[in-house]
């Protein structure tokens, strides 16, 4: 009997957590579209999420593009399809690697910082202090981060796409001996608008998930420094898993026939 009780308790815990998360997300979204807005805070978050993530995302993208060119060249050589390298690089970057890698890197960088900051505010009563100063913490803390995440991730991913494709071009022309103009025209030949758009939609969803997880775990953290540490870990892990799950779902929605 105890086994059933344990399983039941786990299920209830899971459902309660899922419900809390959905309610949190709903409240956060509602706060994001109702005044008062805090333009200064939104701008600061956009700077933090977008601009200061550029080096990390750029480095990730260029090496991914380079390794992609190298791998597909050596792999495709087995059935004499080396010509497809440029197409493979640009399609993989825009559809998959750009958004997913940028999402994961930003989850590690920004999601963790958000959870730690909001978590510390929670355990030092700063969130309670906000309420006593007649300020809604959802509008002051959560909404600016959500809005910034939703808007900035697509921008980051667009930059990552370009840098990644450039990485592939670099390896293709310098190391693998492609003619530069042929490589570029091959890249454009099979690229469709939908490839890029689907990547940007993914990026926006990932931006939402990352900031939501950072805020949610920070907001509900308790128990001092240890609690904040736990919130930070949970924020990064849950954001990363959700990114991978939603990556599949969005791909299915866009491309599965």
């Amino acid at each position: 009997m105890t086994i059933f009780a344990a399983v039941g308790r786990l299920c209830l815990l899971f459902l309660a957590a899922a419900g809390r998360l959905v309610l949190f997300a709903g409240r956060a979204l509602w706060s994001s579209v109702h005044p008062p807005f805090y333009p200064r805070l939104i701008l600061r978050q956009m700077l933090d999420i977008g601009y200061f993530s550029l080096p990390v995302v750029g480095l990730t993208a260029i090496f991914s593009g380079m390794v992609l060119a190298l791998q597909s060249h050596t792999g495709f050589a087995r059935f004499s399809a080396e010509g497809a390298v440029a197409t493979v690089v640009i399609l993989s970057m825009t559809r998959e690697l750009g958004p997913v890698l940028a999402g994961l890197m930003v989850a590690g960088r920004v999601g963790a910082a958000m959870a730690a900051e909001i978590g510390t505010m929670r355990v030092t009563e700063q969130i309670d202090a906000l309420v006593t100063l007649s300020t809604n913490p959802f509008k002051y803390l959560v909404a600016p981060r959500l809005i910034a995440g939703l808007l900035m991730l697509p921008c980051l991913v667009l930059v990552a796409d370009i840098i990644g494709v450039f990485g592939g071009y670099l390896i293709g022309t310098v190391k693998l001996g492609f003619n530069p103009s042929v490589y570029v025209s091959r890249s454009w030949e099979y690229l469709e608008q939908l490839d890029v758009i689907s990547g940007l939609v993914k990026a926006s969803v990932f931006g939402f998930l990352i900031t939501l997880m950072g805020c949610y775990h920070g907001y509900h953290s308790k128990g001092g420094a240890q609690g904040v540490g736990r919130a930070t870990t949970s924020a990064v892990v849950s954001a990363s898993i959700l990114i991978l799950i939603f990556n599949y779902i969005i791909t299915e929605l866009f491309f599965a026939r």
Partner: protein
Amino acid sequence: MTPNPFRTAVAPPKIALEGVHKSFGTKQVLNGVNIHVKRGESLVVIGGSGTGKSVMLKCILGLMEPDAGSIRIDGQDTTHLRPSERMRLMQRFGMLFQGGALFDSLPVWENVAFALLQRRMPRRQAREIAFEKLAAVGLAASVGDLRPAELSGGMQKRVALARAIAIHPEIIFFDEPTTGLDPIMADVINDLIVKCVKELGATAVSITHDMASARKIADHIAMLYKGQVIWSGRTEDIDNSGNPYVEQFIHGCADGPITMELRG
């Protein structure tokens, strides 16, 4: 409207708690708390750690909702307010948190002027008021541009006090105002609290386990034990309370009717 002399005679207490219950899981924290605070009066609630003082304060502030009972401010029940009404009520409150709870992302003056800036007051004007309030709690103007993390504990408490009084609240709450301060700084903070409350003509509710602080800032003292008020009276009477629990607490004896539950 002309003031009605009969009306003022029966004016409801500023704050009235009746039968307030609150529990977390199976742990009953507040077990029917009854407290009345008159307008302009300073009430200090004393009690050991874990007796429900903080929870009571958070219930009055609306940061927690009681399971049962009523909390009335000026006769109006505040336990089931809608968020917008709650926000409006909050504008009449000031709160000094135990750790200060200053926003470490903002400079000191923006902390003090936070509520003013939220009300769309121009920054220049808010800044001036912030420096006035800092001066009122005995801080130099140069402090205004520092970050809260650069201040000592006593200075942080002062800034938090300045923030709490910045919008001229009708009711001010103090959560352990002297905890973590040396005895001299504690006394300075006590004096500041008395001064600020008098100047604002505000009603004050404090919780503390520091008897020196309680004697200094209280008109009335109530003692909380196991989620209930077991004694209340004027500050002068506390030494002749005839209540063994109060006696033990104010003398700080380990022996007596109160036994420390080391297992929560």
